[in-house]
């Protein structure tokens, strides 16, 4: 049974319908990438899974449990973590405090979890007393991912982790995603950078006009000329 299942979900903001029937699954230990043109509803899918938006129809299941519309603070305890696309750090808190907030729901010492994050991102270990708001875009992305990893999630959700980063940093962030995944965390990400993200994904979904149009193994989607022409801008 897959870890996360999104079934026939319809939803939107206020009166405006954005998702018109989305279906997707993420298996244990999988990297799944959602790609598609702007305004397709990619970020909306993420917000919906994370309880920031309620489904009008359809259901979301996580680890065998119906989580449709469940509040974020409960989802966190079930093993779901989410890194929003923008404003994904606490700018006036230090790196270390940002990580502390990631582990807010745990009681007791967080040292072990923090050490693991510092191992993954040695750069953060050097700057643990620095305020997150004063860091570069790449470093902020590391803080954001680090915060989300504090609770040992079963599924890490990343909303456009490479947005606004220099190409070198994009590669670094993607490497980290693979590294996290190797440690046993399933990853669901939304990406503008379709080629790179599909290349490392086990499976991919192409989302357009609020529905998933095509899906399949990442490599295969990349090689599909139809997909490339229609949705990936050549």
């Amino acid at each position, binding site marked *: 049974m897959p870890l996360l299942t999104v079934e026939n979900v319809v939803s939107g903001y206020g009166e405006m319908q954005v998702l018109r029937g989305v279906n997707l699954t993420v298996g244990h230990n999988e990297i799944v990438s959602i790609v598609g043109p702007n305004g397709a509803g990619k970020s909306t899918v993420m917000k919906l899974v994370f309880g920031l938006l309620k489904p009008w129809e359809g259901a979301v299941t996580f680890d065998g449990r119906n989580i449709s519309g469940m509040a974020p*603070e409960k989802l966190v305890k079930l093993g779901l973590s989410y890194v929003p696309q923008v404003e994904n750090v*606490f700018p006036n808190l230090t790196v270390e405090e940002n990580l502390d907030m990631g582990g807010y729901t745990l009681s007791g010492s967080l040292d072990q979890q923090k050490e693991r994050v510092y191992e993954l991102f040695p750069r953060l270990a050097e700057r643990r007393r620095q305020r997150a708001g004063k860091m570069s875009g790449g470093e902020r992305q590391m803080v954001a991912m680090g915060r989300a990893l504090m609770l040992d999630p079963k599924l890490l959700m990343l909303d456009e982790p490479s947005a606004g980063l220099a190409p070198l940093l994009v590669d670094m962030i993607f490497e980290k995603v693979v590294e996290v995944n190797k440690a046993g965390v399933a990853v669901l990400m939304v990406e503008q950078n379709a080629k790179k993200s599909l290349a490392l994904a086990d499976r991919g979904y192409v989302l357009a006009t609020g529905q998933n149009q095509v899906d399949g193994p990442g490599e295969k989607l990349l090689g599909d000329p139809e997909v490339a022409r229609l949705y990936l801008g050549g």
Partner: protein
Amino acid sequence: MTENSSPALRPGERVRNLLTSRAFIYVLLGLVLLGFVIAAQAKGVSANSLLSLFVRGTLLGGTLALGAVGVTLVFAVLKMANFAHGDTMTFGAYMGLLVIMVLPKGPPLAPFSFGYEFLLALLIVVPLIGLFTFGLDQAIFRPLRARRAQPIMFAMAALGLAFGLRSLVYIFWGADFTYYYVGRARPAVELFAGVRVRPDQLFILGLAVVLIVGVYLLLERTKIGKAMRATADNPDLARVSGIDTNRVILWTWLIGGGLAAAGGMLYALDVQLRPEMGWWLLLPLFASVILGTLGNAYGALAGAFVIGIVWQMSSAFINPTYGHGVAFLVMVLVLLFRPEGLFGRSK
């Protein structure tokens, strides 16, 4: 921020950048103080009494800070200007009076003018008012948050609350001013160089400092304190991180309301109890908070001392009742040149 270093600035923009810089505000405040000293000299006020006023301003700054930190914390976490904060201080001060009247009266704890009852009253009233303000929040502001009301509706509800609290004070205690210890002598002692203060005032400053250090430690060291700062920084991300927002709100009111009660009681001990005292303090409180950047606890602290000192020193040469006017003037200067305050990021 990078605009400052850009070489292609026109002279007009350069002047504008200069006028809106933090340094300029410091210069401005310095000039205001210098102007005071000159005006006082012209009026023949001795350097000694100016120094006294400075010291008294610092003492006043301590009590103002207790109120201002509460205003700024509530603003930071809940994004609302709490115009009921001054009247919360009044209410706390009068609750203290109630406790003191109920308790059997002990002798003054020399050299102070108050007895054990005042200290006990502080211990009882501070947490009580903290809880009380949280209760009011749940009854009044929470429904507004749930409805996503405009910020200004919160301010209006706070205004209604302010008048409601004050009417309770009027109903239960009457409109006249009073003291915690009516008729008890409060002699001043010489501190240094002819500066005379009452021992009570040193106690007030000392307690204010202790409370503020306590809040500092809470915000910096404890989990809930960090969660409060995180919520202030980015409420959405705080929720996504699993922070229990209502718990953060509870603590915000416990601290904000509790400090308001402490500030009210200390101010009343120093000056007098009066139903309007909190309303009159609202202006200096907000002046302090705006000067130190809305939402910044350390800024509010600094702002409170600046406002306290400016307020007291102005009385060297103008009618002391215009202290509010001076606080207002400082606020308007800040709003004119640097509305984001001393500790805000310039835009």
